């Protein structure tokens, strides 16, 4: 009953794009006296819950930071285990993505990932490409700076080719070369596990994003925690650099 009230009260101002830095799998494992891989497995379950909840609430874009460019420095066995977990996840979730209309998308450089897994990712991306209800993006081997650099290089190439004059170069234009070009900037960014850093995630895109930090470890991050985060988001005033007065007068429109 309580949850229902909560939902009707909040349904109007659901963030369109939620980004999550999923942190704390290793700490969760240690807390439960288990090996790290058990933490990652539990973390994969939390991904399922978060995806389902967002889909039910009508969130349009969910972007998950799964593996950063810096995670390659982890022990090889752990990286392999994570990749295997991703393969299992894709295999088991494809059916649900199709049924609930979720489009699967990847950002980041996946060229270092094993070809078999790359093929699998491509297959899921292709099969779900017509789904309309929500876009689930996995940031895999992603780095915000790397993405900006990559975009700049592409833009430079087009500039050299004479596609633009100096006056065309705007933030808007550069944004179109980022790997996140076809999605809106995140409205809400959640980081679990009590860390207060962006860790090279969506640097450009999070310019006006609301941040929400929680001490909950990612494997424990359930539906309730996500609703709490959204509630906190709804209680904030988003000004996009304007004053409160301007917002009230509807300057943004």
């Amino acid at each position, binding site marked *: 009953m309580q949850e229902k009230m909560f939902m009707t009260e909040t349904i109007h101002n659901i963030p369109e794009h939620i980004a999550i830095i999923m942190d704390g799998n290793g700490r969760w494992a240690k807390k439960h006296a*288990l090996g790290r891989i058990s933490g990652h497995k539990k973390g994969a379950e939390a991904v399922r819950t978060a995806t389902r909840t967002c889909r039910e609430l009508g969130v349009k874009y969910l972007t998950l930071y799964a593996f950063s460019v810096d995670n390659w420095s982890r022990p090889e066995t752990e990286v392999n285990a994570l990749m295997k977990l991703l393969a299992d996840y894709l295999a088991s979730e494809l059916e649900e993505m199709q049924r609930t209309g979720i489009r699967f998308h990847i950002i980041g450089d996946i060229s270092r990932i094993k070809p078999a897994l790359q093929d699998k990712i491509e297959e899921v991306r292709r099969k779900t490409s017509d789904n309309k209800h929500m876009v689930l993006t996995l940031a895999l081997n992603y780095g915000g700076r790397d993405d900006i650099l990559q975009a700049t290089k592409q833009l430079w190439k087009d500039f050299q080719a004479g596609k633009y004059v100096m006056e065309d170069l705007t933030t808007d234009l550069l944004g179109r070369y980022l790997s996140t070009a076809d999605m809106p900037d995140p409205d809400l960014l959640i980081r679990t596990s009590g860390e207060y850093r962006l860790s090279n995630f969506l640097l450009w895109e999070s310019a006006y994003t609301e941040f929400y930090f929680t001490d909950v470890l990612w494997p424990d991050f359930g539906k309730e925690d996500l609703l709490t985060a959204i509630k906190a988001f709804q209680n904030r005033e988003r000004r996009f650099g304007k004053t409160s007065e301007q917002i009230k007068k509807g300057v943004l429109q």
Partner: protein
Amino acid sequence: MNASHIHRWLTAVIAVPCLFLLIYYGSAHLFSVLIGLVVCVAAWEYEKIIHGHSQLTRRWEFLLTALIIPIVTYHQDFRHLSAMIALLFIFLILCDLFRIRKNQGNPDIGLLTKYVLGMLYIPVLMSYFILIRGFENGHMWIFFILLLAFSGDVAAFYTGKLFGKTKLMPSVSPNKTVAGVVGLVLGSVTACLIFGYYFLPDISILHILAMSFWGCIIGQLGDLFESEIKRAGGIKDSGNILPGHGGVLDRIDCLLFIAPFIYYYYVYIVG
């Protein structure tokens, strides 16, 4: 070389490759089944040591409790395991009370204690192998522990034969010599360092050194404890299922103590 010694090697030559194939190529499920089997046989042997001609019902009750623990461990959740230990503890006590009520047994808290000890000793400690198998690279860690225990045994056997004079703890284990133990530590640390270098490349050599050194000492304590159980029961070998090696319990005695040590070392110090 006497016949029993040849049997010892023959058994090893047959058992080691089988074990290797099962662990390396078998799934985590299959490995858990293997651990379940080992627990059952070892629990059976233990029960025979402490009770001699046991009542059949008592034996089955004990084997049931022994088998349930590895099954619960498979889900890798310590809350389930501790819940199950509490319930099985009560179950063993209730069985005992009912037996007394039906006049099939005498009030004997000593015997009951031995069953509870057996439940904590064999299935609980052995279940750590199932948890270790769940690590990334889990099967390599299983091999690491087996190598740690058995390379030490082989080294101890021959150094003890060649140089052994001073007995270590004659009242419990008449054949152990100080030289044998030194050989055991040297042999198994060397074997583990070589294995770690090639098959556990992510793990620092200092961790391997610490794990193998302390691992053999803890394993020897496990060996001595099993000898104590046997002395108390008045027998030499726990069984004869493995020709030349005695029973299963004789083989896993040190493993039972090493497995939890390696598990927690990995989770809290390496991980």
